[in-house]
């Protein structure tokens, strides 16, 4: 922490990197500040117009601190709360950092740990966290189905997605278990990063531009099975029951951009 942050003020905004690590490091730092009577907010970007009485403290991500917080949450508050808070932290909600912090302050007071905190749905922070958890989980679950791989020159499977929340890493366990003996990559085109799985290996995330431009070029290749798939989607539809409204409700247009059957 910077030394100038040590002076007393009533409100502090901790600004951190937009990642699980960043947010949970801020929770760690914020905890002591709030214990000293300050009102803490956690933000993933610089506030545009901070109040006169608010001080803005940048926080540098620290793996050890973040892991300490995450371990406490999982051990003391249970898997359910852990999952809810992690999903909230990767969501696209601007207040997500503060939200995670508020829920934790409620769940932990002194030596008391409330494992059932997520049941307190009438509380606004808990309620919003629960909503975000569902939203993010739904998006992950949808991408389990909607990711479309394209085979590039017979050895690599390539997919492009554009999720609303930062869920790329959360797709890794599912797809690694599913296709362990394939080389596959999933590209998050909005955040410009790629999840890479080598045959029989472990997933890793890359952000360098060289890899990305190479991937973008190979995405234009044609895959023979796409036509078969398109034909299948056409012939499986019962014309007498045609219902584009329902189709769109279940499969919103934003997902279709990268799905071959709609191109």
């Amino acid at each position, binding site marked *: 922490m910077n030394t100038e942050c040590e002076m007393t003020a009533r409100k502090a905004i901790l600004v951190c990197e937009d990642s699980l690590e960043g947010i949970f490091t801020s929770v760690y730092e914020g905890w002591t500040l709030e214990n000293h009577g300050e009102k803490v907010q956690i933000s993933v970007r610089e506030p545009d117009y901070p109040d006169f009485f608010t001080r803005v403290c940048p926080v540098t991500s620290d793996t050890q601190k973040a892991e300490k917080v995450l371990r406490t949450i999982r051990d003391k508050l249970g898997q359910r709360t852990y999952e809810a808070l992690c999903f909230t932290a990767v969501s696209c909600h601007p207040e997500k950092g503060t939200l995670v912090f508020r829920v934790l302050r409620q769940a932990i007071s002194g030596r008391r740990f409330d494992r*059932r905190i997520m*049941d*307190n*749905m*009438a*509380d606004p922070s808990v*309620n919003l966290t629960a909503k975000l958890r569902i939203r993010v989980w739904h998006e992950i*679950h949808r991408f*389990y*189905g*909607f*990711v*479309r*791989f*394209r*085979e590039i020159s017979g050895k690599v*499977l390539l*997919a492009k997605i554009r999720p609303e929340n930062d869920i790329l890493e959360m797709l890794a366990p*599912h797809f690694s*278990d*599913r*296709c*362990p*003996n*394939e080389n596959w990559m999933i590209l998050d085109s909005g955040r410009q990063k790629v999840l890479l799985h080598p045959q029989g290996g472990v997933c890793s995330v890359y952000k360098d531009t060289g890899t990305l431009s190479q991937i973008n070029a190979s995405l234009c290749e044609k*895959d023979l*099975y796409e*036509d*078969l*798939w398109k*034909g*299948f*989607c*056409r*012939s*499986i*539809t*019962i*014309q*007498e*029951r*045609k*219902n*584009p*409204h*329902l*189709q769109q*409700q*279940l*499969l919103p247009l934003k997902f279709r951009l990268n*799905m071959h*059957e709609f191109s």
Partner: protein
Amino acid sequence: MIVQESMSLMQKLEILSDAAKYDVACTSSGTERKGDGTGIGNSIQAGICHSFAGDGRCISLLKVLYTNECVYDCKYCINRASNDVVRTSFTPEEISRLTIEFYRRNYIEGLFLSSGVKGSPDATMEEMIRAVELLRTKYRFQGYIHMKAIPGASPELIERAGFLADRMSINLELPTAEGLRRLAPNKTRKTILKPMKQIQVRHMENKQELVLYRHAPRFVPAGQSTQMIIGATGESDYQIVSAAEAMYQQYSLKRVFYSAFVAVNQDNTLPVLPQGPPLLREHRLYQADWLLRFYGFQASELLSDAHPNFNLLLDPKCDWAVSHLENFPVEINTADYRTLLRVPGIGEKSASRILGARRYHSLDFEDLKKIGVVLKRALYFITCRGKMMYPIRLEEDYIVRNLLDPSVRMPVPASEVTYRQLSLFEDLALAGQKGGMGV
């Protein structure tokens, strides 16, 4: 019969998926299985939808027939023996290759394999098993497989298929034996129910085996399902729901599917449906099906001989609630889970959320809204801390009128003097019985 020998994979896929589309089940749920690292695939409990077809139905499995050649002549079926359509068959290698290639690209969750009866039921079943065996052994495929059992196939083949598939199904086709005799002359209740019983018994035994030996092979881990055609013969909703209930209770089925009859054939035994398939009726049956499976209702509570069909305007739960007002209102802060489940507008999720949230403090209507209760429907049937949301009369006509009127969001508080529409049939007692609705 036109049987074309040489045909491209594309043409075959189009013909055989087109022929399979009237099968409703496309679920990939019920099995949780991690990949073992040697091949490809896994399966998750909730199932995954990979796409949605133009009719709004989910595409989760590669749904195809093994062959559309068929010796049976079921009146409603596009592939009946007397129809003049192009016939073709896959080979086991083609099916397994197609499944794997689709699966690798994450198009599908697995395979749904059904078939016309080519030669004899046993011969057909044998071919289907060969395709699935190839998939499981050569490709080490651990994804989801749903297999149809062909009515009349021998028990040994059913047993073999059961150890390869995740789910098996045998279509009940029609809810009454009489209907089956009329529209599917080659099938009988006996040939349908016998394999169903066999799968149920074997599944139970397998559960015991799994307790003893955790790694014993699993027999139909996702259970079995069946399907009924709605609106092809004249049976009532009560008969259909009772048949479904019997299926759940006596054959421990996982799901019963309902398929609105689509007239693909011209036949004097089939009804003509100028308004298209009875989709709303199908929807009501699915709603009732959920009430049977998750909400603790019984078929005889929802319908009776005197009231044999669902009200198309109201969902079955509202319909039940307005005619059983003696059970209401329910106090949200004290009622147990089962009672909460019976309130319209409260589902499984919101009922358990209510139980969780009221541990913290007693709940009000504002809290219920946040929890996700549909107050528009629930408010007539509940109290919070002893008070209703609005002064409401617990009166069937009044509630039905408000439930049906989309313009009235919340009811106008009832005053002492009330007015209502004079209804010729009800008020002058011209009708034999009191109608369910006041509109």
